[in-house]
């Protein structure tokens, strides 16, 4: 056990070390931000419902060792995407044996920071950190302070990538606590079009990993990105995840996410509108059971006129778990003719579970259409009765209604193999949820 102050000191000492990527500009900025940052406490509004005390007492402060991983088990995690370029990181390190992306690597679409060409270095320095404010995100600042390596996905102008880019972050069982810090920078050139799939998964039980991840996305004018995210790790793992998106003129960003709770899981999704007529769709479902914890923090910064955003998140909370949703829409004074809608619907199934939701609107322009809604409820009595009146027993009826609730979001995932994988993972998740057991064993 260490104190949060020691934790910060140690983290700082580590990040101050010599970097092999001396050409990177970001670490110096991030280090300053992290030094100045106060680590969240219960009094920090943005972390009100998510205590990180336990995390900050745990001595994670060494990079996770790259153990040999059971390859067969690792491959079991993958979705059946035969033509996709697959990049696999185990405990934060690239695993070439499990990966398969040589085509795109040769074309310069996917590059490791450590092997970036001079042009790519310039590109990385130009975009890294532009969608992210490290002062507001201490863990992201920590991530960028300690930039040993990273992934660059650079989609060329006016091209549509035929196959999805599939990035898998795997945690393997570790004997001692350790951290993995990963980051992905996506730069889509004007008119580029691509699908990105991120999967956060784990192999083996008793996972002592603290995963601190940042994905930064910059969409140039007219670029389009479909983003599918699965966060389905084993529940002992701790994961703080930052997704920071910058949208320029006429760009289009669409996200479909499924996230399971774990000992500590925090998702920050930050979308910055930096050009007119950009559009953003965020679809997600979060689920928590046992004593899991999941915190979703969305922030949509509408800083330019004529943009639209549509956010719809669903929550499924049971047992003694706790889930949080915080969705903020911020319309800047100049962002006239914005249309922004946000919706959070939750199913709270257990007396000992807790759900806190806080949809926020902060509006400084008048010619806008904005709305948000939130609801917390249980399974609909009438629907249950409908099932039962047709001879389906109550337990099965409940299970079907729960599945129907979650499945709406699964069906929206624009990739059939990912839908199948999601359903498979959901099956595992529901397997020990009392209400759903019956149906799943049918």
């Amino acid at each position: 056990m260490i104190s949060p102050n020691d934790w910060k000191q140690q983290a700082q000492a580590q990040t101050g070390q010599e970097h092999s990527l001396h050409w990177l500009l970001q670490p110096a900025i991030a280090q300053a931000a992290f030094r100045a940052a106060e680590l969240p406490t219960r009094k920090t509004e943005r972390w009100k419902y998510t205590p990180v005390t336990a995390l900050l007492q745990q001595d994670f402060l060494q990079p996770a060792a790259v153990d040999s991983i059971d390859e067969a088990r690792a491959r079991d995690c993958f979705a059946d995407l035969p033509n996709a370029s697959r990049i696999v990181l185990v405990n934060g390190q690239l695993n070439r044996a499990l990966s398969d992306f040589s085509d795109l690597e040769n074309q310069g679409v996917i590059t490791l920071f450590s092997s970036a060409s001079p042009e790519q270095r310039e590109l990385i320095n130009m975009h890294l950190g532009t969608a992210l404010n490290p002062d507001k995100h201490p863990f992201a600042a920590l991530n960028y302070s300690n930039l040993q390596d990273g992934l660059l996905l650079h989609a060329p102008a006016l091209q549509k990538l035929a196959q999805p880019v599939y990035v898998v972050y795997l945690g393997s069982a570790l004997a001692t606590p350790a951290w993995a810090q990963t980051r992905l920078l996506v730069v889509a050139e004007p008119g580029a079009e691509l699908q990105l799939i991120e999967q956060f998964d784990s192999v083996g039980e008793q996972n002592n990993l603290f995963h601190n991840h940042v994905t930064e996305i910059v969409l140039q004018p007219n670029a389009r990105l479909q983003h599918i995210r699965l966060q389905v790790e084993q529940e002992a793992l701790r994961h703080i995840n930052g997704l920071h998106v910058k949208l320029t003129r006429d760009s289009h960003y669409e996200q479909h996410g499924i996230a399971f709770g774990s000992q500590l899981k925090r998702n920050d999704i930050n979308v910055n509108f930096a050009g007119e007529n950009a559009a953003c769709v965020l679809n997600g479902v979060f689920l928590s059971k046992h004593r899991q914890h999941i915190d979703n923090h969305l922030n949509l910064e509408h800083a330019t006129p004529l943009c639209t955003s549509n956010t719809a998140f669903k929550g499924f909370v049971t047992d003694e778990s706790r889930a949080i949703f915080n969705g903020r829409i911020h319309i800047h004074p100049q962002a006239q003719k914005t249309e922004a809608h946000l919706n959070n619907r939750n199913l709270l199934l257990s007396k000992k579970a807790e759900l806190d939701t806080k949809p926020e609107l902060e509006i400084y322009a008048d010619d806008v259409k904005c709305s948000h809604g939130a609801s917390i409820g249980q399974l609909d009595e009438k629907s249950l009765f409908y099932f039962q009146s047709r001879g389906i027993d109550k337990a099965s009826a409940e299970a079907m209604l729960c599945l129907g609730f979650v499945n709406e979001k699964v069906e929206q995932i624009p990739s059939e193999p990912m839908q199948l994988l999601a359903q498979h993972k959901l099956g595992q998740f529901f397997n020990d949820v009392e209400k759903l057991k019956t149906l799943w064993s049918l």
Partner: protein
Amino acid sequence: MSKGNEIDDLISREYEAGFVTQVESDTLPPGLNEEVIRIISGKKNEPEWMLEWRLEAYRKWQQMDIPRWAQMPHPEVDFNAISYYSSPKSKKNGPKSLDEVDPEVLATFEKLGIPLHERGKLAGVAVDAVFDSVSIGTTYKEELAKAGVIFCPISEAIKDHPELVRKYLGSVVPQQDNFYAALNSAVFSDGSFVYIPKNTRCPMELSTYFRINELNTGQFERTLIVADEGSHVSYLEGCTAPMRDENQLHAAVVELVALGDAQIKYSTVQNWYPGDANGKGGIYNFVTKRGLCAGVNSKISWTQVETGSAITWKYPSVVLRGDNSVGEFYSVALTNNFQQADTGTKMIHLGKNTKSTIVSKGISAGRSQNSYRGLVRISPRADNARNHTQCDSLLIGDRCGAHTFPYIEAKNSDSIIEHEATTSKVSDDQLFLCRQRGIDEEKAVSMIVNGFCKEVFKELPMEFAVEAGKLLEVSLEGAVG
């Protein structure tokens, strides 16, 4: 009336209650220390326990920090530059009856349309009028006494009904509840006390009217309403202040207690001076209002129309402790020019089958900022709790802001909670439709705004609803075009 006159009439309308009354007053020098509290307590001839209670609050207040979480930047309030007590000077030891009150003061209330004689146009409403730090008169006392209802200034209640005051004062809003409540507990000077006995329906509407007159004073009134089992009361509150370039502080505390089967309906039309078009002057309205549904089947309903004050910081709340209790909050908050409002409610569900409804309408114009901040908390034992929240905001002009910060915390899986919020501007289509029919733009906006607020206005007692409608028109002055 010709059309030209009508427009002139509209334009010339502004804050009508902004005059100053010239009365000799007895005002304490600015500053706050234990001595000042002893003087205030002494002026009221308070018993020892009351003074102790105030001093305890003062000591707690000194340890507390100014809350800074609300969405409202403002210059620091210098708590030592405020005078904590001011009363119109009277020749004797305070007026025995309304006839003895300074005619200037009576004229003030007359001018404001508050009937202090019992045959006025609002006959049938009992009024307690508070001028700066003292209550200057209460009407219909005898008639209310017949029904067993106690309606008097709180300073009188402390002397005449100490058992009731001791039991309930601070029971809903404890001394150390928040910075401004602690300050109020230490220095409160007057306010109203209401007690409705068991199974009694209060025979008339009760009303308190607050008036700040003196310069550099703060008004700290304290209202305590206790509705005993099976009783019912409807209470109205109104307020105005002169137009001044200095900001003045108003930090009130209102506590409501509803015992089993009791119902309290509390309506406010808040029209403190909002400051001028450049944001100079106006009242800082930092108020703590909370009701406790202590008994089974009790009900507390807050209705507020907030058009005044430079800054409004106010969250009338309901603690739903009794099973089957009901809490309601209906609010219209209008801000214009440089006004800031951060207002909303808290519904704390503790008992079983408790229900709450929140309807909040925010209208921002000019360069004002208007926030709804609310909390709905369902505790683990609040089985079958139900909440519905509706927050709508209307924006008039492109320099104002409208914000919504609802906190929803559910710890019981039997509860159903819904929250909806929308923000939009006055629709061009609606405006066009009105203008096409010969209604000018200002009138059309005022019609649309009135329609927008209808859901809340219908909860107000009739006289208030009319006044509220008029207030909106005045406050929106110059917001269009």
